[in-house]
C-alpha cells in the first residue's frame, strides 16, 4: 500500500504567536513549487508549545521545532526524498544529538496520551479527520447499544473522577443528575481556562473539539439532557472559533440536533462566552453567570445535579472529563481503570510551565511522580539551577518543596500535602524564585478574584495580602506568621466555594515547607532569591554574603576609576584580590544581565580593580584606641583572618593561632597555585598583620581553658573543615587512597606525591576539580617518599615537579547538571584534558599487578532524596573496571575539633552555635566558617568572619559596628546604557601548552580597556526606580 505523506503544522496559540501562520503559507508555496503529493494539514496544539512552531512529517514521525518560514524549502525538498532535515530536528539538550522522530523525544516518550491522543495529529476544523480516528463511534455505540443506566454504570466502574479539581466520581454525578426529578435537564461543559498556569482546556478545544462534543453527547444521553452549554472564555477566541466550526459540522452530519443516529434522542449545544471571572470556575457561580447574573457561588446543597441552571437538574463537568468519556466507552471501563492508581484512575493532564526546560501539555497516568514529570518529560531545570518548589493546581494550589518530588500525582496524595490537583497547572520554580513572593503573588490574585460574597474570603484574603506585602517590604514581624496561619484557617473554614477554601493553600504550604525564607525576610531583611523589591537594592550585592556594593564598584570601573572601585570592595572584605581570583561569585548567578545575554563578569572585574589599586583607601581606614581586651582566633583561614582584622580595627588585641606552617587556611593549602598565586595571598595577609593582628603559626590549640587562662577575653574558632570523608568502599585502606585536601596541601608544601601515570579522582566538587587539574600538572615518576619528609627533602622535591600524570579521570556519581563544581572550573579542567565519567560510582578497589583495579558501576538518576536532588542508583549489570595508579578521594570534608574543647557538635562534626551571635554554648567562645557550616566558600567564610567580629565586639562591650567608608560616597554617575545584546567580554587564559608544565596562573585577567567595556554592560539595577 502506498503510504500517504502528510505534513502536520501546529496552529495552536503558542505556535501561532511564534509565526506558524506565515510558516503555513511558506510551506504551501514550497510544496506547490515541487508539485509533491503531500497533504499539508493544520492541526491543533501538539503540546510542546515552547519549541514552536512545530511541524510533524507523517507517517515517519519526523519532528521539527522552532521552524521559520525560510526553512520551508528545505523541509519540502527533504520530504520529496523521504528523509529528515537534521538541522531542524529537536536536539537532546545533554548530548546535542538530533532526535528525528517525536516518539523518541523525551518530552513525548514519557507521556501516555489518551485525551491528548489526537492533539496535533488531526485537523480540528475538519470532521473527516476526527471520523478517521474512530470519531463519534463511541457516541453511536452509546446511543444505539447502551441504556443510559449502562453508560452511568460503565463510567462509574471506570473510576473516572472530575478533572475540574474536586475529583468527584463522574459516573455517580451523572447517575444523581439522571435520577433527579424533572424532565428538563441541562449539561454544562466548563471550559473556563481562567486558571493562571493552566491552558489545557483551551488547547484541547483548539486541537480536538469533536472529542469534547462527543463526550458531551454521551453524557447528555446518559442523564437525559437535551440542551448543553459550553462555557468558554471570550478571550480564547481561537477555541471559540474552532468549536463553532466543529459544532456546525457535527450538526451537518446529524451528530447534533434531532433524532441523533436515528435513536430518537435530540441534543444540541450552545456556546456561552464567559466574560472573565476566575470564580466562575466554581459550578454554581458559572451557572449564575449563564443566567445573566454576577458570578457568585451559592450554598450547596442543593447541588446543581438537583437544582442547577434555571432550577433544573444540571450536570457540570470540565473539558478534560468530557474528552475522556469517548475513550472509556470505546475501550471499556476495565481498560480505563487499569491506568492510574487505586483511587485515581486514568491520566492526569498538566500544563507544565515555569522554570523547566520543556514547557507544554503533558498527559501521564495518575500516580506518576512529580520528579518523573519534571525531570524526564520536562527535561529538568534550565541553566543548571536547582529546583526549589513546584506549585500544582494554580494560584490556589500549594507549593511543594524539592524533597517531596517523589509524590505521585493523584487527587489524594496532593491534597494530603496541602496542594491540590486543581485544574492541572504545574509551575516549576527554581532557586531564583522567592517563596514569600509567590505566596504574596498568589494571594494578590485570589484577593482580586474573590467575588466578595463570603466575608472571610473577601476580608481575610485582603488582610493576608497586607501581611505578606509587609513581609516582602521588610516591615514584617515574627508574630505575623502566626496571624497568617490563623487567618488562613478562618478563610478556609468560612468560605462557600472552592476559591475561598483553597486560596490560603499557597500561604499555608510555603509557611510549612519554606518557613526559613519568611524568617529571613523578617529577621534579616534578606530575600535569598533577590526578588523582593522592597529589600533588594541590586540582586548582586544582596546575594553577596559580604554585601559588597557591586553596582557601585562596577560603575567606578566603567568610569576608569579602578583604585576607587577597589576601595569600595575593601570596605567589606580584607581579601579583595583573593576574591577577585577565586570567589565562586553567587552574585553572578543572580545578575539580571543574564536575561539579556550573559551575567556581568563580576569576579573578574574585582580582580581588575585589585590589580590597579593605589592603596589610597588605607588613609581612610578607621583606627580606634586600644580597648585592652584580648581575642584569640584559632585558625587562619578566611573566616579567622577576617574576624581578626575587623576586631583589631575595633581596638582589640588579636592573636591568631595556626597549626600549619603558614597562615591562610584553605586559601593557601586547598586552592592550587595556578588559581591563586601565594604572593597575592601573602600580600593581603601582611595588610592584616599591619592592622595589628599577631599570627602564631605551627601552634595547635588543644584546650580552650588554656587560652582563657592566658588572659584572652574571647575566643573565635575558625578551624575550617580539613578531614577528608572516607569513601566507605572495600579495599579503600589497602590501596592507599589519597585524601584530596591532604594531597593538595602536600603539593602546596612542596612534597612530592607519587601519583603514577593514571589517576582517578572521585567526587564532583571544586576540590575534585582542583585535585584533578593539580594531578595533571604533577610529576608522575619522582621518588621522594611523601609521608615523613623534612624541610630539605621538601625543597628538593619542589624541584622534582615534572610534567603531569598522563591520564586523569574524575568519577562522579551524578550527571553534569548536578555537579557542584563551578562550570568555569569544569570547563578549564576539560580543556586541559581531564576526563569526567559522569553517572559512575566506584564500588571496590583492589591491588592488581602493581596498579589499582577500580571496579565501578554506571548510575542513573532515580527518585529525589531528602536534599531534593535526584538520587543516583546503580544500573544493574553495568559494572566495569578501570586500572589506575592512584585514587584521590574528594567527596567532602568535615571539621576536626580537639576533644579538649568540650563543645557540642552536630552529626556532621560541625559546631553548634547561636545563628544570630555565632556564640557556642560556652560564653565567650564563638565559631564561624566551615567549622560551623561544613565545607563552603571563601566569601561565605569572610562573611562569617565579619559577623563574628561584630558579635565579639559587642560581647566585649563595643557597638559591633565594623562598617568602613574608604572613599567619599561620591555622587552616582550612571553611564548611558547600551542598546541591544553584547555578550560578556571573554577573559584571556594561558594557552594549554603553557599550563601543564607547572603551576602558572591560568586566568590572565582583563586589560583596563576590557574591564571598562565589561563594566559598561551593567544594567545598574540599584538605580532603578522603586
Amino acid at each position, binding site marked *: 500500500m502506498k503510504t500517504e505523506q502528510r505534513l502536520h503544522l501546529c496552529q495552536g*496559540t503558542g505556535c501561532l504567536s511564534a509565526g506558524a501562520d506565515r510558516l503555513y503559507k511558506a510551506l504551501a508555496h514550497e510544496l506547490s513549487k515541487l508539485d509533491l503529493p503531500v497533504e499539508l494539514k493544520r492541526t491543533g496544539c501538539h503540546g510542546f508549545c515552547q519549541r*514552536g512552531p512545530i511541524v510533524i512529517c507523517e507517517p515517519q514521525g519526523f519532528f521539527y521545532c522552532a521552524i521559520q518560514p525560510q526553512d520551508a524549502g528545505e523541509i519540502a525538498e527533504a520530504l520529496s526524498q523521504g528523509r529528515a532535515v537534521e538541522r531542524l530536528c529537536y536536539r537532546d539538550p545533554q548530548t546535542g544529538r538530533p532526535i528525528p522522530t517525536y516518539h523518541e523525544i523525551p518530552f513525548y516518550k514519557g507521556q501516555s496520551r489518551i485525551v491528548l491522543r489526537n492533539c496535533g495529529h488531526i485537523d480540528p476544523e475538519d470532521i473527516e479527520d476526527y471520523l478517521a480516528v474512530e470519531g463519534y463511534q463511541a457516541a453511536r455505540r452509546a446511543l444505539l447499544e447502551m441504556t443510559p443506566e449502562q453508560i452511568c454504570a460503565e463510567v462509574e466502574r471506570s473510576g473516572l473522577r472530575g478533572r475540574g479539581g474536586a475529583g468527584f466520581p463522574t459516573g455517580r454525578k451523572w447517575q444523581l443528575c439522571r435520577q433527579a426529578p424533572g424532565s428538563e435537564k441541562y449539561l454544562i461543559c466548563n471550559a473556563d481556562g481562567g486558571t493562571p498556569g493552566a491552558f489545557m482546556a483551551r488547547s484541547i478545544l483548539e486541537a480536538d473539539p469533536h472529542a469534547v462534543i462527543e463526550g458531551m453527547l454521551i453524557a447528555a444521553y446518559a442523564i437525559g439532557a437535551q440542551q448543553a452549554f459550553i462555557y468558554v472564555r471570550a478571550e480564547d477566541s481561537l477555541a471559540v472559533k474552532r468549536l463553532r466550526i466543529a459544532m456546525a459540522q457535527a450538526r451537518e452530519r446529524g451528530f447534533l440536533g434531532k433524532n441523533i443516529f436515528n435513536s430518537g434522542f435530540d441534543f444540541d449545544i450552545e456556546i*456561552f462566552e464567559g466574560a472573565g471571572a476566575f470564580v466562575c470556575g466554581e459550578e454554581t457561580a458559572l451557572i449564575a*453567570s449563564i*443566567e*445573566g447574573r454576577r458570578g457568585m457561588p451559592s450554598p450547596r446543597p442543593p447541588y446543581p445535579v438537583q437544582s442547577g441552571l434555571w432550577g433544573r437538574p444540571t450536570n457540570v463537568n470540565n473539558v478534560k472529563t468530557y474528552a475522556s468519556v469517548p475513550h472509556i466507552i470505546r475501550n471499556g471501563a476495565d481498560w480505563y481503570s487499569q491506568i492510574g492508581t487505586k483511587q485515581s484512575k486514568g491520566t492526569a493532564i498538566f500544563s507544565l510551565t*515555569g522554570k523547566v526546560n520543556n514547557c507544554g501539555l503533558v498527559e501521564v497516568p495518575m500516580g506518576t511522580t512529580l520528579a518523573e514529570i519534571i525531570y524526564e518529560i520536562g527535561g529538568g531545570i534550565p541553566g543548571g539551577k536547582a529546583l526549589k518548589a513546584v506549585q500544582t493546581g494554580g494560584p490556589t494550589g500549594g507549593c511543594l518543596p524539592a524533597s517531596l518530588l517523589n509524590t505521585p500525582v493523584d487527587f489524594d496524595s496532593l491534597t494530603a500535602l496541602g496542594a491540590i490537583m486543581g485544574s492541572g497547572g504545574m509551575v516549576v520554580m527554581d532557586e531564583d524564585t522567592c517563596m514569600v513572593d*509567590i505566596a504574596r503573588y498568589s494571594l494578590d490574585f485570589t484577593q482580586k478574584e474573590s467575588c466578595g460574597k463570603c466575608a472571610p474570603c473577601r476580608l481575610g484574603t485582603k488582610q493576608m495580602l497586607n501581611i505578606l506585602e509587609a513581609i516582602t517590604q521588610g516591615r514584617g514581624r515574627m508574630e505575623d506568621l502566626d496571624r497568617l496561619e490563623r487567618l488562613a484557617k478562618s478563610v478556609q473554614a468560612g468560605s462557600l466555594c472552592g476559591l475561598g477554601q483553597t486560596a490560603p493553600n499557597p500561604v499555608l504550604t510555603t509557611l510549612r515547607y519554606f518557613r526559613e525564607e519568611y524568617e529571613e525576610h523578617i529577621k534579616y531583611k534578606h530575600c535569598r532569591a533577590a526578588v523582593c523589591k522592597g529589600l533588594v537594592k541590586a540582586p548582586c550585592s544582596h546575594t553577596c554574603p559580604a554585601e559588597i556594593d557591586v553596582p557601585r564598584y562596577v560603575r567606578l570601573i566603567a568610569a576608569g576609576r579602578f583604585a576607587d572601585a577597589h576601595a569600595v570592595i575593601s570596605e567589606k572584605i580584607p581579601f579583595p584580590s583573593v576574591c577577585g581570583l577565586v570567589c565562586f561569585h553567587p552574585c553572578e548567578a543572580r545578575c539580571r544581565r543574564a*536575561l539579556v545575554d550573559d551575567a556581568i563578569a563580576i569576579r573578574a572585574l574585582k580582580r581588575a580593580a585589585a590589580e590597579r589599586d593605589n592603596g589610597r583607601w588605607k588613609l581612610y581606614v578607621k583606627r580606634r584606641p586600644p580597648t585592652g581586651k584580648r581575642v584569640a582566633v584559632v585558625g587562619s583561614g578566611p573566616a579567622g583572618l577576617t574576624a581578626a582584622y575587623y576586631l583589631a580595627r575595633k581596638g582589640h588585641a588579636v592573636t591568631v593561632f595556626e597549626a600549619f606552617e603558614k597562615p591562610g587556611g584553605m586559601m593557601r593549602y586547598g586552592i592550587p597555585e595556578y588559581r591563586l598565586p601565594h604572593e597575592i595571598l601573602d600580600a593581603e595577609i601582611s595588610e592584616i598583620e599591619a592592622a595589628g593582628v599577631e599570627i602564631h603559626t605551627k601552634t595547635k590549640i588543644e584546650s580552650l581553658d588554656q587560652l582563657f587562662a592566658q588572659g584572652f577575653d574571647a575566643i573565635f574558632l575558625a578551624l575550617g573543615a580539613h578531614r577528608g570523608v572516607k569513601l566507605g568502599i572495600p579495599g579503600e585502606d589497602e590501596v592507599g587512597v589519597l585524601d584530596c585536601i591532604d594531597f593538595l596541601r602536600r603539593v602546596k608544601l612542596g612534597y612530592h606525591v607519587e601519583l603514577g601515570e593514571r589517576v582517578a579522582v572521585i567526587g564532583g566538587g571544586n576540590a575534585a576539580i582542583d585535585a584533578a587539574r593539580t594531578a595533571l600538572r604533577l610529576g608522575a615518576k619522582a621518588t621522594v617518599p611523601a609521608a615523613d619528609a623534612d624541610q630539605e627533602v621538601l625543597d628538593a622535591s619542589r624541584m622534582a615537579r615534572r610534567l603531569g600524570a598522563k591520564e586523569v579521570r574524575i568519577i562522579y556519581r551524578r550527571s553534569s547538571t548536578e555537579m557542584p563544581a563551578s562550570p568555569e572550573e569544569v570547563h578549564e579542567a576539560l580543556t586541559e584534558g581531564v576526563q569526567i565519567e559522569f553517572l559512575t560510582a566506584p564500588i571496590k578497589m583492589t591491588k592488581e599487578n602493581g596498579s589499582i583495579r577500580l571496579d565501578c558501576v554506571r548510575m542513573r538518576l532515580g527518585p529525589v532524596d531528602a536534599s531534593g536532588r535526584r538520587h543516583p542508583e546503580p544500573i544493574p549489570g553495568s559494572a566495569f573496571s578501570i586500572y589506575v595508579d592512584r585514587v584521590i578521594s574528594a567527596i567532602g570534608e568535615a571539621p576536626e575539633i580537639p576533644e579538649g574543647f568540650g563543645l557540642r557538635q552536630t552529626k556532621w562534626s560541625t559546631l553548634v552555635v547561636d545563628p544570630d551571635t555565632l556564640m557556642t554554648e560556652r560564653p565567650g567562645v564563638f565559631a564561624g566558617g566551615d567549622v560551623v557550616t561544613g565545607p563552603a566558600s571563601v566569601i561565605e567564610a569572610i562573611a562569617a568572619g565579619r559577623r563574628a567580629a561584630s558579635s565579639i565586639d559587642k560581647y566585649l562591650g563595643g557597638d559591633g559596628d565594623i562598617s568602613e567608608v574608604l572613599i567619599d560616597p561620591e555622587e552616582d554617575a550612571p553611564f548611558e546604557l547600551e542598546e541591544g545584546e553584547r555578550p560578556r567580554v571573554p577573559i584571556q587564559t594561558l594557552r594549554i601548552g603553557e599550563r601543564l608544565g607547572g603551576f602558572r596562573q591560568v586566568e590572565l585577567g582583563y586589560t583596563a580597556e576590557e574591564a571598562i567595556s565589561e563594566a559598561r554592560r551593567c544594567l545598574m539595577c540599584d538605580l532603578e526606580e522603586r
Partner: protein
Amino acid sequence: MSEVKARTQGKLIPLLQQAQDKWGYLPQEALRQIARLLHLPESHVFGVATFYAQFKLTPVGRRRVIVCRGTACHARGGARVLATVKKELGLQEWETAADLSYTLETAACIGACALAPCLVINGQVHGRLTPQKAAELFEERRSRED
C-alpha cells in the same frame, strides 16, 4: 421570577458583549437600553457589567496591551516586563492614554504559559520576553505610527 423573565435575563451577558464589540466599551446609554430591553433594573445591569473583567465602562485605546500576570509569567520575571511596559507607555494598569492610542491591561493568565513571560497587543501574543525585548516592542510600534 417568572420562567420567561429568567430566560430573558440569560441574554444579558451576550448582549453586553455585543454592545462592547460595537463601541469598544459600554457607554452608559447602552447599559440603559439593554436594561430596558430585558426588563431588568439598571442596577442589575451595572452590577453585572462591573463584575466581569471583560467589560469596560470607559473608552479603550486603539492598541490594547494585555500583560499576562499568570504564575508561569511571574515565575519567569513577568513583574519586570510589566514595569517596563508601564514605563514605555507612561500608563498604569487599566489606564488609557489621553489620545486613546493605548490601553494597558493585565490578565490573570492568557494561557500562553509555555511562552512566559508574555503579553498581547491587539490579539497578537508576544512571548519569551525580557524587559528589554518588551521595550523594543513599543519602540517599533511607535516608529511605525510616526
